[in-house]
């Protein structure tokens, strides 16, 4: 069973808040899920960092050039709270 302390740490790292009821529910489910994930430990494969058969190939980097984005209004309109094209957040520094 995943401990409540462990789950609290995961919530903090994930920036999630769970109610007491959710803690109980997620604790049980996470324990079952992690038991399934543990089966991977039975394999004896080692990750090869320099293996060129990596599943995600990358193309060449594009030139690092500035491009203008012409829809500032579209960005600002999606902001939950904005003032003068700035996103407003609660006070961070006293």
């Amino acid at each position: 069973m995943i401990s409540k302390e462990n789950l609290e740490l995961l919530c903090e790292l994930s920036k999630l808040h769970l109610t007491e009821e959710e803690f109980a529910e997620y604790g049980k489910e996470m324990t079952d899920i992690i038991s399934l994930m543990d089966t991977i430990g039975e394999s004896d494969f080692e990750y090869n960092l320099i293996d060129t058969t990596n599943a995600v190939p990358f193309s060449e980097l594009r030139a690092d050039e500035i491009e203008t984005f012409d829809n500032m209004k579209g960005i600002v309109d999606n902001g939950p709270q904005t003032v003068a094209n700035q996103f407003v957040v609660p006070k961070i520094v006293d």
Partner: protein
Amino acid sequence: MTTVSLLRKKLDQKEISSVELTKEYLKKIHENEHLGAFNTVCEDEALISAAKADERIASGDSAPLTGIPMAIKDNICTKGIKTTCSSKMLESYAPPYDATVMEKLNSQNVVVLGKTSMDEFAMGGSSQTSALQKPKNPFNIECVPGGSSGGSATAVSAGLCSAALGSDTGGSIRQPASFCGITGIKPTYGTVSRFGLVAFGSSLDQIGPMANSAEDCGIILNAIAGQDKHDRTTRKHEIDFLSCIGNSIKGMKIGLPKEFFGNGIDEEVKTAVLNVAKFYENMGAELVEVSMPTLKYAVSAYYLLACAEASSNLSRYDGVKYGYRTDAPESYDELIKKTRSEGFGTEVKRRILLGTYALSSGYYDAYYKKALAVRQQCKAEHDEIFSKCDLMLTPTAPTVAYKVGANIDDPVKMYLADICTVTANIAGIPAISVPCGCDKSGMPIGFSLSAKRFDDAKLIGAADIFEKENPHPTANI
């Protein structure tokens, strides 16, 4: 069943206009709102696009998809049209830009009918984790359409659009295609740009078509594939996805991995897929038994990788720049925590927690790094199989569509149901799901063909051969 290729002929021969066609589809969408296929219907925009398409057709300059009414999964950014990911978090989000696939479709004057419902942030296999519309299976509305691209599958299967785009991270195009009796392909990773696809598992995600035929999938892939400067994982690889249509399958080797036909696969599904093998054998293909020993670790490796990437990708939802924001937070930390806790649904939170666990100090080597090792081995096994075979044949899903509400409280059972599809994403190979009849209850069964990277056209050609002799089942709506 109306295919894109048939509509192209009718439009070009002026048997019907795009406006007339669009009105027909919109009428059908409204008549079938109970199916929950769409989060947003773009009625006005669709009719404007259709009128422009008609002008282009009249000028004799039509592209393969000009004037064709399509539906788009609600995690693909459409400029000025809501892109919700079926989440409270993005319920009001209207992207300020188009995804690359939308730019490509718009350049052909495709008509976008609307945005289709899905599992929240594409996390699920039933589309029931949606916080908005929950799509139903047109073959039996008490059953799920599969997921996560369930709305797209429902819309195509019920004839609410001619074709649709979905996205596939661990089977999210193929499994709903199988459940709803349509064809869907996950292209080779790097074929279609992910720019503007709301990220889930970036090393696994691919956009792909869902349609009434493999040929239609090829037509759509020809339109949306290609290298994109905004997505460094796209490859410069010129493919005509229709190039193998009409080719014989004689002499091709089709691998049957024994692990995909063992316990856990429904007997009716197994029989139907083995009948497909016999069909191809009768058409001149050679069947070869192959093996994929890593399959037993595939679900764990997939969920560890996908959730690790999701936990990172979804960290952007903090209530600051776009999306849902909690009311009156007292601090910046509270703003982020309450926004995320209220905006995300249960399954999304579950996967963020799992991904964070896999990446956290003390567990990274045991889980995430081990999953990367399994991924390398899985890819090596695929390379080995495709050195002996042209194609691999498997079931798309262990069962047919199940009842709404079943499995929803058992995440482990839900995850294990992805066993037949996740390896294609892990290895980055193309895979197509094609209907092969129905079970005793009348629900569609799908088979899957996969091939080595960038052999997508070969899959489409082989699927087309089967479809020509075995029509898709049709939903009675």
